């Protein structure tokens, strides 16, 4: 058997989805962003909505997400993605609109836009990457940083008396009548990746029925910011992040 015998469509087991561009991602090796991007892109491909989707990129590690998703993209100011998404969906109601934001963007500077877009029940999908740290700016404390967790601006650990408590924004958003689907997922094992993809698919499908905000939190690692190897960071995520941010559906509207 030679090479040409193997490279045939029927033998294809894996390929890059055409909803991702060929640009090389800038994410650190081991980071969960790349997997999360791929899942969103695969869902868009499988639903056949590439030409009817507009994405909103944040400020943070995924600021350049617009270079990777092969759909029309808008780059928002820090925290403002839900406001952009609101207007896009209202003015183009037959389009699928998603925002992709990190924890600093969505749960600190953009808390107001996040809560009000969810409370209005905007018919959009929000993807929320929670790695408990500001990755892009070099590992500072985030609203989601765990108690006692060390970051560059909490070098002796997050001391909640003076630095405040880690914010469970996802549970908070589940309380709002405008959210129809709120779930927390992870992407550090193959089984969790498959589960997360099903959740993202559901979050996009809901837009067909005008049900309100579908919100998918993905608890992710930041091996660079946490100063660990990728493998160690995944173990740390499981041992420390998941007890405080447990996985699973938080709200599923009928």
């Amino acid at each position, binding site marked *: 058997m030679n090479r040409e015998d193997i490279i045939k469509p029927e033998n294809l087991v894996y390929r890059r989805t055409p909803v991702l561009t060929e640009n090389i991602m800038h994410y650190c090796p081991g980071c969960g962003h790349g997997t999360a991007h791929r899942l969103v892109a695969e869902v868009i491909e499988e639903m056949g909505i590439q030409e009817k989707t507009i994405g909103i990129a944040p400020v943070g590690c995924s600021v350049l997400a617009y270079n990777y998703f092969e759909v029309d*993209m808008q780059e928002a*100011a820090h925290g403002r993605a839900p406001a952009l998404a609101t207007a896009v969906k209202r*003015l183009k109601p037959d389009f699928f609109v998603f925002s992709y934001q990190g924890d600093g963007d969505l749960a600190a500077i953009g808390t107001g*836009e996040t809560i009000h877009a969810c409370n209005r029940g905007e018919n959009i999908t929000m993807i929320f990457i929670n790695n408990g740290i500001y990755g892009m700016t070099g590992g500072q404390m985030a609203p989601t940083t765990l108690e006692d967790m060390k970051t560059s601006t909490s070098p002796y650990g997050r001391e909640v008396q003076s630095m405040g408590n880690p914010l469970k924004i996802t549970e908070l958003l589940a309380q709002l009548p405008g959210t129809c689907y709120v779930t927390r997922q992870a992407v550090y094992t193959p089984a969790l990746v498959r589960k997360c993809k099903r959740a993202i698919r559901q979050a996009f499908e809901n837009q067909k029925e005008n049900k309100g905000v579908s919100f998918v939190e993905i608890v992710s690692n930041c091996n660079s910011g946490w100063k660990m190897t990728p493998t160690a960071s995944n173990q740390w995520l499981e041992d420390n992040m998941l007890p405080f941010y447990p996985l699973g559906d938080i709200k599923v509207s009928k």
Partner: protein
Amino acid sequence: MKELRLMKGNEAIAEAAIRYGVDGYFGYPITPQSEILEHLMAEEPYKKTGMVVLQAESEVASINMVYGGAACGKRAMTTSSSPGISLMQEGLSYIAGAELPCLVVNVVRGGPGLGTIQPSQADYFQTTKGGGHGDYRLITLAPASVQEMYDFVALAFELAFKYRNPAMILSDGVIGQVMEKVQIDDYKPRWTDEYIKKSFPWATTGKNPNTPHVIVTSLELDSSKQEQVNIRIQKKYRECEAKEVRYELINCEDAEYLFVAYGSSARICQKAIQLGREKGIKVGLVRPITLWPFPSKILNEMADKVKGMLSVEMSAGQMVEDVLLATKHKIKVEHYGRFGGIIPTPQEVLHALETKIIGG
């Protein structure tokens, strides 16, 4: 014959937006311009033209909703008053950086800080010199009547789309609240999605099968490319300065002295001209209609013909700096203003001309 209506300046903005075919209005209440959102909500434009009107949770959200709509090639707008406009400066910088067209209306009140809800013109610097971060400009129109509040909605959108840049209508609490008769247009249809897709290849209208996706962003991390972005934007601004200056000359033919004033101050100066001419003072008015680009050329030419100019503003003296730059110290130029929400009378404006320019 067009329909005539008695309207407030704020209502004229709202009515013009609906009838011109604006796609989306996003705003937050603030005095003295809340009638704009109220009028839009009462008129239910969604039923008439399909226009979307949404009360946002803040001015920050409003301007970013405008960004999202503008990036889709839609005609998107917001309105506010001074403190709210301050909150929008970040968004305006992003919109200018992403080269998107939109309309922002500022019905100016007195500051600084929470200031007063009474009229002012103290946001001239913020509007014409930047306001947000980075090298950008706002195409700025200054209405002096309710009719101009109405007419400038269309003009602002035309200029904004021509230059792919945010446009500002810089009004004030007087023009926003005063009632005058206005000629209004019939309803124009909004642009179709097909027209937008065909006309604005820069807009996010859904990826085309055979072309790359569209990205709307103001980010370019490679400095050599970011410099090129700035050079392109500045070239656009030079073209705008060459082509889009608008102004009105009133009683300038035989004038020995000039008022320079915009908006409601220009209206007060018209009365002051009448009072002055009754006393034999040959005074006229240059009324800038575009504050950026500023009518520097005509002011420089007029400086060769008159003995002095008085810049009249409801501020501590902001536009006067542009008048000084334009006239290059060829003649005497002074400022007269009231601020904090106080509106000067024609008598005190004329007295200022007599003491600061003629007798000074």
